[in-house]
Protein backbone atom coordinates (compact mmCIF):
# COMPACT_ATOMS: atom_id res chain seq x y z
CA UNK A 1 0.00 0.00 0.00
CA UNK A 2 3.02 2.29 0.27
CA UNK A 3 3.61 4.91 2.92
CA UNK A 4 0.76 6.16 5.12
CA UNK A 5 -1.02 9.42 4.25
CA UNK A 6 -0.62 10.84 7.75
CA UNK A 7 1.46 9.75 10.69
CA UNK A 8 1.00 11.85 13.81
CA UNK A 9 3.13 10.89 16.78
CA UNK A 10 2.97 12.41 20.23
CA UNK A 11 1.28 15.56 18.96
CA UNK A 12 0.58 18.07 21.72
CA UNK A 13 -0.68 21.59 21.31
CA UNK A 14 -0.67 24.18 24.05
CA UNK A 15 -1.96 27.64 23.13
CA UNK A 16 -0.22 30.57 24.86
CA UNK A 17 2.52 28.14 25.81
CA UNK A 18 4.55 29.28 28.80
CA UNK A 19 2.14 31.97 29.95
CA UNK A 20 -0.45 32.12 32.73
CA UNK A 21 -3.35 31.50 30.39
CA UNK A 22 -1.84 28.49 28.67
CA UNK A 23 -4.51 26.12 27.36
CA UNK A 24 -3.69 22.60 26.33
CA UNK A 25 -5.84 21.78 23.32
CA UNK A 26 -4.37 18.39 22.46
CA UNK A 27 -2.13 15.92 24.27
CA UNK A 28 -0.18 13.03 22.97
CA UNK A 29 -2.05 12.30 19.77
CA UNK A 30 -0.89 9.23 17.87
CA UNK A 31 -2.79 8.57 14.67
CA UNK A 32 -2.04 7.04 11.34
CA UNK A 33 -4.23 7.45 8.25
CA UNK A 34 -3.86 5.16 5.24
CA UNK A 35 -3.92 6.47 1.66
CA UNK A 36 -7.46 6.47 0.31
CA UNK A 37 -8.95 6.24 3.77
CA UNK A 38 -11.86 8.37 4.98
CA UNK A 39 -11.35 9.26 8.65
CA UNK A 40 -13.69 11.41 10.74
CA UNK A 41 -12.79 13.28 13.90
CA UNK A 42 -15.71 13.60 16.29
CA UNK A 43 -16.02 14.91 19.83
CA UNK A 44 -17.68 17.55 22.00
CA UNK A 45 -16.74 21.19 21.45
CA UNK A 46 -13.35 22.00 22.91
CA UNK A 47 -11.94 18.55 22.22
CA UNK A 48 -9.44 20.01 19.76
CA UNK A 49 -10.71 18.30 16.59
CA UNK A 50 -10.40 21.46 14.49
CA UNK A 51 -6.97 22.13 16.00
CA UNK A 52 -5.92 18.63 15.04
CA UNK A 53 -7.07 19.16 11.46
CA UNK A 54 -5.09 22.40 11.27
CA UNK A 55 -1.97 20.74 12.66
CA UNK A 56 -2.26 18.07 9.95
CA UNK A 57 -2.55 20.88 7.40
CA UNK A 58 0.40 22.87 8.83
CA UNK A 59 -1.81 25.86 9.58
CA UNK A 60 -0.93 25.49 13.27
CA UNK A 61 2.35 24.03 14.46
CA UNK A 62 2.31 21.52 17.31
CA UNK A 63 4.01 22.36 20.62
CA UNK A 64 5.45 18.84 20.72
CA UNK A 65 5.38 15.77 18.52
CA UNK A 66 5.53 15.47 14.76
CA UNK A 67 3.27 15.08 11.75
CA UNK A 68 4.36 13.39 8.57
CA UNK A 69 2.26 13.57 5.43
CA UNK A 70 3.18 11.10 2.68
CA UNK A 71 6.59 10.72 4.25
CA UNK A 72 7.27 14.47 4.35
CA UNK A 73 6.90 17.09 7.05
CA UNK A 74 3.47 18.76 7.09
CA UNK A 75 5.18 22.04 6.16
CA UNK A 76 6.74 20.49 3.08
CA UNK A 77 3.42 18.88 2.12
CA UNK A 78 1.74 22.29 2.33
CA UNK A 79 4.42 23.88 0.14
CA UNK A 80 3.99 20.97 -2.31
CA UNK A 81 0.25 21.76 -2.41
CA UNK A 82 -0.77 18.33 -1.18
CA UNK A 83 -3.77 19.72 0.71
CA UNK A 84 -7.27 20.59 -0.32
CA UNK A 85 -9.33 22.33 2.34
CA UNK A 86 -13.02 23.01 2.90
CA UNK A 87 -14.68 24.69 5.86
CA UNK A 88 -18.14 25.16 7.37
CA UNK A 89 -18.37 28.50 5.61
CA UNK A 90 -17.98 27.91 1.89
CA UNK A 91 -15.61 30.90 1.91
CA UNK A 92 -15.96 31.60 -1.80
CA UNK A 93 -14.55 34.87 -3.05
CA UNK A 94 -17.44 37.25 -3.81
CA UNK A 95 -15.58 38.95 -6.63
CA UNK A 96 -14.80 35.79 -8.53
CA UNK A 97 -17.30 33.94 -10.66
CA UNK A 98 -17.91 30.32 -9.70
CA UNK A 99 -15.51 29.11 -12.37
CA UNK A 100 -12.76 31.48 -11.20
CA UNK A 101 -13.28 30.35 -7.62
CA UNK A 102 -12.73 26.73 -8.65
CA UNK A 103 -9.67 27.76 -10.65
CA UNK A 104 -8.04 29.67 -7.79
CA UNK A 105 -5.76 26.83 -6.63
CA UNK A 106 -4.82 26.15 -10.26
CA UNK A 107 -3.92 29.80 -10.74
CA UNK A 108 -1.69 29.64 -7.68
CA UNK A 109 -0.05 26.50 -9.06
CA UNK A 110 0.65 28.31 -12.33
CA UNK A 111 -1.61 26.33 -14.68
CA UNK A 112 -2.24 27.79 -18.14
CA UNK A 113 -5.57 29.43 -18.87
CA UNK A 114 -6.72 26.65 -21.20
CA UNK A 115 -5.83 23.91 -18.76
CA UNK A 116 -7.61 25.78 -15.96
CA UNK A 117 -10.76 26.22 -18.03
CA UNK A 118 -10.82 22.57 -18.98
CA UNK A 119 -10.38 21.45 -15.39
CA UNK A 120 -12.97 23.83 -13.97
CA UNK A 121 -15.49 22.53 -16.52
CA UNK A 122 -14.75 18.99 -15.39
CA UNK A 123 -15.12 19.98 -11.74
CA UNK A 124 -18.38 21.81 -12.43
CA UNK A 125 -19.91 18.69 -13.91
CA UNK A 126 -18.42 16.56 -11.12
CA UNK A 127 -20.29 18.63 -8.52
CA UNK A 128 -23.33 18.78 -10.82
CA UNK A 129 -23.29 22.53 -11.42
CA UNK A 130 -22.38 22.56 -15.12
CA UNK A 131 -24.46 25.63 -15.90
CA UNK A 132 -23.30 27.81 -13.01
CA UNK A 133 -19.72 28.58 -14.00
CA UNK A 134 -20.45 32.20 -14.84
CA UNK A 135 -22.58 32.92 -11.79
CA UNK A 136 -21.33 34.90 -8.83
CA UNK A 137 -21.36 33.13 -5.45
CA UNK A 138 -24.26 35.18 -4.06
CA UNK A 139 -26.48 33.82 -6.82
CA UNK A 140 -26.09 30.28 -5.41
CA UNK A 141 -27.83 28.57 -2.48
CA UNK A 142 -25.81 27.51 0.56
CA UNK A 143 -25.63 23.90 -0.62
CA UNK A 144 -24.51 24.92 -4.10
CA UNK A 145 -21.85 27.21 -2.64
CA UNK A 146 -20.55 24.35 -0.56
CA UNK A 147 -20.35 22.17 -3.67
CA UNK A 148 -18.28 24.87 -5.36
CA UNK A 149 -16.02 24.96 -2.30
CA UNK A 150 -15.52 21.20 -2.60
CA UNK A 151 -14.84 21.54 -6.31
CA UNK A 152 -12.27 24.21 -5.50
CA UNK A 153 -10.65 22.01 -2.85
CA UNK A 154 -10.37 19.09 -5.28
CA UNK A 155 -9.65 20.95 -8.51
CA UNK A 156 -5.92 20.33 -8.38
CA UNK A 157 -6.28 16.71 -7.21
CA UNK A 158 -4.66 17.17 -3.82
CA UNK A 159 -3.50 13.99 -2.15
CA UNK A 160 -5.23 14.88 1.10
CA UNK A 161 -8.58 16.55 1.63
CA UNK A 162 -9.06 18.25 5.01
CA UNK A 163 -12.66 19.20 5.82
CA UNK A 164 -13.81 21.16 8.86
CA UNK A 165 -17.57 20.58 9.33
CA UNK A 166 -18.22 21.40 5.68
CA UNK A 167 -21.92 20.53 5.90
CA UNK A 168 -22.49 21.99 9.37
CA UNK A 169 -24.49 24.97 8.13
CA UNK A 170 -26.76 23.02 5.78
CA UNK A 171 -30.28 21.75 6.43
CA UNK A 172 -30.70 18.03 7.06
CA UNK A 173 -31.91 17.03 3.59
CA UNK A 174 -29.24 19.01 1.76
CA UNK A 175 -26.69 17.63 4.15
CA UNK A 176 -27.58 14.00 3.46
CA UNK A 177 -27.53 14.71 -0.24
CA UNK A 178 -24.11 16.37 0.02
CA UNK A 179 -22.74 13.39 1.95
CA UNK A 180 -23.66 11.09 -0.92
CA UNK A 181 -22.15 13.51 -3.41
CA UNK A 182 -18.93 13.71 -1.42
CA UNK A 183 -18.63 9.92 -1.26
CA UNK A 184 -19.23 9.67 -5.00
CA UNK A 185 -16.49 12.22 -5.73
CA UNK A 186 -14.18 10.68 -3.15
CA UNK A 187 -14.55 7.24 -4.75
CA UNK A 188 -14.04 8.69 -8.19
CA UNK A 189 -10.85 10.59 -7.33
CA UNK A 190 -9.45 8.21 -4.71
CA UNK A 191 -8.25 10.94 -2.34
CA UNK A 192 -7.63 10.59 1.37
CA UNK A 193 -10.06 12.51 3.58
CA UNK A 194 -9.89 13.76 7.15
CA UNK A 195 -13.31 15.07 8.12
CA UNK A 196 -14.22 17.00 11.27
CA UNK A 197 -17.87 16.77 12.32
CA UNK A 198 -20.06 16.69 15.36
CA UNK A 199 -22.82 14.75 13.73
CA UNK A 200 -22.85 11.08 14.72
CA UNK A 201 -24.81 9.83 11.68
CA UNK A 202 -22.59 11.88 9.39
CA UNK A 203 -19.43 10.33 10.83
CA UNK A 204 -20.88 6.83 10.62
CA UNK A 205 -22.20 7.27 7.10
CA UNK A 206 -19.02 8.71 5.58
CA UNK A 207 -16.11 7.11 7.34
CA UNK A 208 -13.91 4.05 7.26
CA UNK A 209 -12.85 4.95 10.78
CA UNK A 210 -14.25 7.38 13.35
CA UNK A 211 -11.81 8.93 15.83
CA UNK A 212 -13.62 9.87 19.06
CA UNK A 213 -11.89 12.66 20.96
CA UNK A 214 -12.35 13.59 24.62
CA UNK A 215 -12.03 17.20 25.77
CA UNK A 216 -9.85 19.17 28.19
CA UNK A 217 -7.24 18.29 27.23
CA UNK A 218 -8.07 16.81 23.83
CA UNK A 219 -6.97 13.21 23.45
CA UNK A 220 -8.04 10.19 21.45
CA UNK A 221 -10.65 8.25 23.41
CA UNK A 222 -11.25 5.50 20.91
CA UNK A 223 -11.16 4.69 17.23
CA UNK A 224 -14.22 2.96 15.79
CA UNK A 225 -13.98 1.11 12.51
CA UNK A 226 -17.08 1.41 10.34
CA UNK A 227 -17.40 -1.48 7.92
CA UNK A 228 -20.63 -0.86 6.10
CA UNK A 229 -19.43 -1.51 2.57
CA UNK A 230 -20.50 0.78 -0.25
CA UNK A 231 -22.87 3.45 1.10
CA UNK A 232 -26.14 4.51 -0.49
CA UNK A 233 -29.45 5.92 0.73
CA UNK A 234 -30.47 2.53 2.13
CA UNK A 235 -27.40 2.42 4.35
CA UNK A 236 -28.97 5.03 6.63
CA UNK A 237 -31.84 2.67 7.42
CA UNK A 238 -29.76 -0.48 7.79
CA UNK A 239 -29.24 -2.30 11.04
CA UNK A 240 -25.45 -2.08 10.74
CA UNK A 241 -25.66 1.71 10.46
CA UNK A 242 -27.89 1.84 13.53
CA UNK A 243 -25.41 -0.32 15.48
CA UNK A 244 -22.50 1.94 14.49
CA UNK A 245 -24.25 5.20 15.38
CA UNK A 246 -25.15 3.64 18.73
CA UNK A 247 -21.56 2.62 19.30
CA UNK A 248 -20.27 6.12 18.47
CA UNK A 249 -22.98 7.72 20.60
CA UNK A 250 -22.03 5.57 23.60
CA UNK A 251 -18.36 6.44 23.16
CA UNK A 252 -19.27 10.14 23.08
CA UNK A 253 -21.45 9.79 26.18
CA UNK A 254 -18.63 8.22 28.16
CA UNK A 255 -16.39 11.05 26.95
CA UNK A 256 -18.85 13.70 28.14
CA UNK A 257 -19.29 11.94 31.47
CA UNK A 258 -15.57 11.91 32.20
CA UNK A 259 -14.49 14.42 34.83
Amino acid at each position, binding site marked *: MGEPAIVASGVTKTFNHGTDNAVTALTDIDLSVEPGEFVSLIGPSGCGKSTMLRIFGD*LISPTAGSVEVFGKSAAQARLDRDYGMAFQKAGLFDWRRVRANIELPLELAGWSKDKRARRSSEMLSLVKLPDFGNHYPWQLSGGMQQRVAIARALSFEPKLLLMDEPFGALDEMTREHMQLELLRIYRQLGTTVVFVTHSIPEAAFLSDRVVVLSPRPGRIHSIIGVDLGRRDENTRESEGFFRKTTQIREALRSVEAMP
Partner: protein
Amino acid sequence: MRSRLAPLWPPIVVGVIIVSLWEGVVRAFDIKEFLLPKPTSIMAAVGDQWVPLRTAGWQTGRTAVAGLLIGVVTGALLALVISRFGWLRGSVTPLAVALNATPIIALAPIFNAWFGITDFRSNTAVVIVVVFFPVFINTGKGLDEVEPNQIELMRSLAASDTTVLRMVRIPNALPFFLTSLRLAAPLSVIAAIVAEYFGGPQNRLGPFITQNASFSRYANAWAAIVVASAIGLALFALSALVEKVSMPWKQGDPSRA
Protein backbone atom coordinates in the same frame (compact mmCIF):
# COMPACT_ATOMS: atom_id res chain seq x y z
CA MET B 1 -33.28 51.82 -19.26
CA ARG B 2 -36.61 52.68 -17.75
CA SER B 3 -36.03 50.43 -14.73
CA ARG B 4 -32.55 51.90 -14.15
CA LEU B 5 -33.79 55.46 -14.00
CA ALA B 6 -36.91 54.55 -12.06
CA PRO B 7 -35.28 54.99 -8.61
CA LEU B 8 -34.45 58.60 -9.53
CA TRP B 9 -38.10 59.66 -9.72
CA PRO B 10 -39.15 59.58 -6.06
CA PRO B 11 -36.35 61.92 -4.84
CA ILE B 12 -36.97 64.27 -7.78
CA VAL B 13 -40.68 64.45 -7.00
CA VAL B 14 -40.04 65.02 -3.29
CA GLY B 15 -37.40 67.65 -4.15
CA VAL B 16 -39.83 69.53 -6.39
CA ILE B 17 -42.49 69.40 -3.67
CA ILE B 18 -40.08 70.77 -1.04
CA VAL B 19 -38.86 73.61 -3.28
CA SER B 20 -42.49 74.51 -4.15
CA LEU B 21 -43.44 74.50 -0.47
CA TRP B 22 -40.43 76.70 0.30
CA GLU B 23 -41.48 79.16 -2.39
CA GLY B 24 -45.10 79.07 -1.22
CA VAL B 25 -44.31 79.52 2.48
CA VAL B 26 -41.91 82.42 1.86
CA ARG B 27 -44.58 84.14 -0.27
CA ALA B 28 -47.56 83.34 1.98
CA PHE B 29 -45.92 84.48 5.21
CA ASP B 30 -44.00 87.29 3.57
CA ILE B 31 -40.69 86.08 5.01
CA LYS B 32 -37.94 88.66 4.55
CA GLU B 33 -35.37 87.87 1.88
CA PHE B 34 -32.48 88.26 4.32
CA LEU B 35 -33.90 85.45 6.44
CA LEU B 36 -34.78 83.07 3.65
CA PRO B 37 -34.80 84.05 0.00
CA LYS B 38 -37.33 82.42 -2.35
CA PRO B 39 -35.97 79.67 -4.61
CA THR B 40 -36.92 81.85 -7.58
CA SER B 41 -34.80 84.73 -6.21
CA ILE B 42 -31.90 82.34 -5.65
CA MET B 43 -32.12 81.02 -9.20
CA ALA B 44 -32.31 84.60 -10.46
CA ALA B 45 -29.13 85.36 -8.49
CA VAL B 46 -27.43 82.32 -10.02
CA GLY B 47 -28.18 83.76 -13.47
CA ASP B 48 -27.25 87.27 -12.43
CA GLN B 49 -23.95 86.28 -10.81
CA TRP B 50 -23.12 83.54 -13.29
CA VAL B 51 -19.72 84.89 -14.40
CA PRO B 52 -18.13 85.32 -10.95
CA LEU B 53 -19.91 82.15 -9.72
CA ARG B 54 -18.55 80.11 -12.59
CA THR B 55 -15.00 81.25 -11.84
CA ALA B 56 -15.41 80.71 -8.09
CA GLY B 57 -17.03 77.32 -8.61
CA TRP B 58 -14.27 76.25 -10.98
CA GLN B 59 -11.53 77.34 -8.55
CA THR B 60 -13.17 75.80 -5.48
CA GLY B 61 -14.00 72.67 -7.45
CA ARG B 62 -10.36 72.36 -8.48
CA THR B 63 -9.21 72.65 -4.88
CA ALA B 64 -11.75 70.02 -3.84
CA VAL B 65 -10.87 67.59 -6.64
CA ALA B 66 -7.09 68.01 -6.22
CA GLY B 67 -7.38 67.48 -2.45
CA LEU B 68 -9.76 64.56 -2.98
CA LEU B 69 -7.43 62.77 -5.39
CA ILE B 70 -4.31 63.28 -3.28
CA GLY B 71 -6.11 62.39 -0.04
CA VAL B 72 -7.70 59.25 -1.51
CA VAL B 73 -4.47 57.99 -3.06
CA THR B 74 -2.34 58.59 0.04
CA GLY B 75 -5.02 57.16 2.34
CA ALA B 76 -5.36 53.97 0.30
CA LEU B 77 -1.59 53.57 -0.19
CA LEU B 78 -0.79 54.02 3.48
CA ALA B 79 -3.50 51.49 4.38
CA LEU B 80 -1.87 49.02 1.96
CA VAL B 81 1.59 49.54 3.40
CA ILE B 82 0.30 49.07 6.93
CA SER B 83 -1.62 45.95 6.05
CA ARG B 84 1.44 44.44 4.39
CA PHE B 85 3.66 45.21 7.37
CA GLY B 86 1.56 44.04 10.30
CA TRP B 87 3.87 45.45 12.96
CA LEU B 88 2.97 48.99 11.85
CA ARG B 89 -0.73 48.38 12.48
CA GLY B 90 -0.56 48.50 16.26
CA SER B 91 1.15 51.88 16.26
CA VAL B 92 -0.13 53.78 13.24
CA THR B 93 -3.81 52.85 13.14
CA PRO B 94 -4.76 53.96 16.70
CA LEU B 95 -2.85 57.17 16.07
CA ALA B 96 -4.82 57.77 12.87
CA VAL B 97 -8.09 57.10 14.67
CA ALA B 98 -7.13 59.59 17.38
CA LEU B 99 -6.10 62.20 14.83
CA ASN B 100 -9.34 61.63 12.99
CA ALA B 101 -11.20 62.67 16.14
CA THR B 102 -9.52 66.07 16.16
CA PRO B 103 -11.41 68.81 14.32
CA ILE B 104 -9.20 68.94 11.26
CA ILE B 105 -10.70 72.20 10.04
CA ALA B 106 -8.96 73.84 13.01
CA LEU B 107 -5.74 73.27 11.09
CA ALA B 108 -6.75 75.73 8.36
CA PRO B 109 -5.04 78.78 9.91
CA ILE B 110 -1.92 76.68 10.55
CA PHE B 111 -1.74 75.64 6.91
CA ASN B 112 -2.17 79.32 5.99
CA ALA B 113 0.93 80.02 8.04
CA TRP B 114 2.81 77.14 6.41
CA PHE B 115 1.97 77.69 2.77
CA GLY B 116 0.96 81.39 2.77
CA ILE B 117 -2.52 82.78 3.25
CA THR B 118 -3.11 83.44 -0.45
CA ASP B 119 -1.54 80.19 -1.61
CA PHE B 120 -3.96 77.58 -3.00
CA ARG B 121 -1.94 74.88 -1.27
CA SER B 122 -3.24 75.99 2.14
CA ASN B 123 -6.82 75.15 1.19
CA THR B 124 -5.86 72.02 -0.70
CA ALA B 125 -3.95 70.77 2.35
CA VAL B 126 -7.12 71.02 4.47
CA VAL B 127 -9.06 68.98 1.89
CA ILE B 128 -6.31 66.35 1.73
CA VAL B 129 -6.30 65.88 5.50
CA VAL B 130 -10.10 65.76 5.72
CA VAL B 131 -10.34 63.18 2.92
CA PHE B 132 -7.36 61.12 4.01
CA PHE B 133 -8.75 59.72 7.27
CA PRO B 134 -12.02 58.12 6.19
CA VAL B 135 -10.25 56.55 3.21
CA PHE B 136 -7.29 55.34 5.28
CA ILE B 137 -9.43 53.90 8.09
CA ASN B 138 -12.06 52.25 5.87
CA THR B 139 -9.57 50.79 3.43
CA GLY B 140 -7.50 49.46 6.31
CA LYS B 141 -10.59 47.82 7.74
CA GLY B 142 -11.36 46.16 4.42
CA LEU B 143 -7.80 44.87 4.11
CA ASP B 144 -7.88 43.37 7.60
CA GLU B 145 -11.42 42.06 7.87
CA VAL B 146 -11.05 39.00 5.71
CA GLU B 147 -12.80 35.75 6.62
CA PRO B 148 -10.20 33.76 8.60
CA ASN B 149 -11.08 30.63 6.57
CA GLN B 150 -10.16 32.42 3.37
CA ILE B 151 -6.72 33.21 4.74
CA GLU B 152 -6.36 29.61 5.93
CA LEU B 153 -7.36 28.38 2.49
CA MET B 154 -4.74 30.57 0.83
CA ARG B 155 -2.08 29.43 3.27
CA SER B 156 -3.00 25.78 2.72
CA LEU B 157 -2.32 26.46 -0.97
CA ALA B 158 1.14 27.81 -0.10
CA ALA B 159 0.25 31.39 -1.09
CA SER B 160 2.69 34.08 0.07
CA ASP B 161 1.61 37.16 2.05
CA THR B 162 1.97 39.27 -1.08
CA THR B 163 -0.26 36.91 -3.03
CA VAL B 164 -2.84 36.98 -0.23
CA LEU B 165 -2.72 40.78 -0.34
CA ARG B 166 -3.19 40.85 -4.10
CA MET B 167 -5.76 38.09 -4.48
CA VAL B 168 -7.76 38.40 -1.25
CA ARG B 169 -7.15 41.51 0.81
CA ILE B 170 -7.27 44.11 -1.95
CA PRO B 171 -10.47 42.83 -3.61
CA ASN B 172 -11.97 42.40 -0.15
CA ALA B 173 -11.12 46.03 0.66
CA LEU B 174 -12.54 47.40 -2.58
CA PRO B 175 -16.14 47.89 -1.33
CA PHE B 176 -14.81 49.52 1.85
CA PHE B 177 -12.57 51.82 -0.17
CA LEU B 178 -15.36 52.79 -2.54
CA THR B 179 -17.75 53.50 0.32
CA SER B 180 -15.14 55.81 1.80
CA LEU B 181 -14.74 57.47 -1.59
CA ARG B 182 -18.48 58.10 -1.71
CA LEU B 183 -18.22 59.69 1.78
CA ALA B 184 -15.10 61.66 0.94
CA ALA B 185 -16.30 63.15 -2.36
CA PRO B 186 -18.90 65.58 -0.94
CA LEU B 187 -16.70 66.08 2.14
CA SER B 188 -13.97 67.49 -0.10
CA VAL B 189 -16.26 70.34 -1.24
CA ILE B 190 -17.27 71.13 2.35
CA ALA B 191 -13.63 71.13 3.42
CA ALA B 192 -12.58 73.36 0.52
CA ILE B 193 -15.26 75.99 1.28
CA VAL B 194 -14.68 76.02 5.04
CA ALA B 195 -10.92 76.32 4.43
CA GLU B 196 -11.63 79.27 2.14
CA TYR B 197 -13.50 81.02 4.98
CA PHE B 198 -10.15 81.17 6.78
CA GLY B 199 -8.26 82.74 3.90
CA GLY B 200 -6.80 82.05 0.51
CA PRO B 201 -7.39 83.55 -2.90
CA GLN B 202 -10.57 85.66 -3.07
CA ASN B 203 -12.20 84.40 -6.28
CA ARG B 204 -13.59 81.27 -4.59
CA LEU B 205 -16.98 80.17 -3.34
CA GLY B 206 -16.05 80.59 0.36
CA PRO B 207 -15.16 84.29 0.11
CA PHE B 208 -18.06 84.80 -2.32
CA ILE B 209 -20.48 83.56 0.36
CA THR B 210 -18.96 85.52 3.26
CA GLN B 211 -18.69 88.77 1.29
CA ASN B 212 -22.24 88.65 -0.07
CA ALA B 213 -23.59 87.71 3.35
CA SER B 214 -21.78 90.63 4.99
CA PHE B 215 -23.39 92.98 2.44
CA SER B 216 -26.80 91.38 3.12
CA ARG B 217 -26.98 90.03 -0.44
CA TYR B 218 -28.35 86.75 0.78
CA ALA B 219 -29.74 85.57 -2.53
CA ASN B 220 -26.20 85.78 -3.94
CA ALA B 221 -24.81 83.83 -0.98
CA TRP B 222 -27.49 81.19 -1.53
CA ALA B 223 -26.65 81.12 -5.22
CA ALA B 224 -23.06 80.19 -4.31
CA ILE B 225 -24.41 77.47 -2.03
CA VAL B 226 -26.41 76.09 -4.96
CA VAL B 227 -23.23 75.97 -7.04
CA ALA B 228 -21.34 74.28 -4.20
CA SER B 229 -24.10 71.68 -3.84
CA ALA B 230 -23.98 71.01 -7.56
CA ILE B 231 -20.24 70.36 -7.36
CA GLY B 232 -20.68 68.11 -4.33
CA LEU B 233 -23.49 66.22 -6.02
CA ALA B 234 -21.46 65.79 -9.21
CA LEU B 235 -18.49 64.37 -7.28
CA PHE B 236 -20.82 62.08 -5.36
CA ALA B 237 -22.44 60.84 -8.57
CA LEU B 238 -19.01 60.26 -10.09
CA SER B 239 -17.85 58.21 -7.11
CA ALA B 240 -21.10 56.23 -7.14
CA LEU B 241 -20.46 55.51 -10.82
CA VAL B 242 -16.91 54.38 -10.09
CA GLU B 243 -18.35 52.10 -7.41
CA LYS B 244 -20.79 50.52 -9.84
CA VAL B 245 -18.29 50.05 -12.64
CA SER B 246 -15.46 48.63 -10.53
CA MET B 247 -17.52 45.96 -8.77
CA PRO B 248 -19.37 44.07 -11.50
CA TRP B 249 -20.02 41.19 -9.09
CA LYS B 250 -22.28 43.41 -7.03
CA GLN B 251 -24.68 44.04 -9.90
CA GLY B 252 -28.14 42.98 -8.81
CA ASP B 253 -26.94 41.56 -5.50
CA PRO B 254 -30.05 41.74 -3.31
CA SER B 255 -27.90 41.91 -0.15
CA ARG B 256 -26.89 45.43 -1.11
CA ALA B 257 -29.90 47.33 -2.33
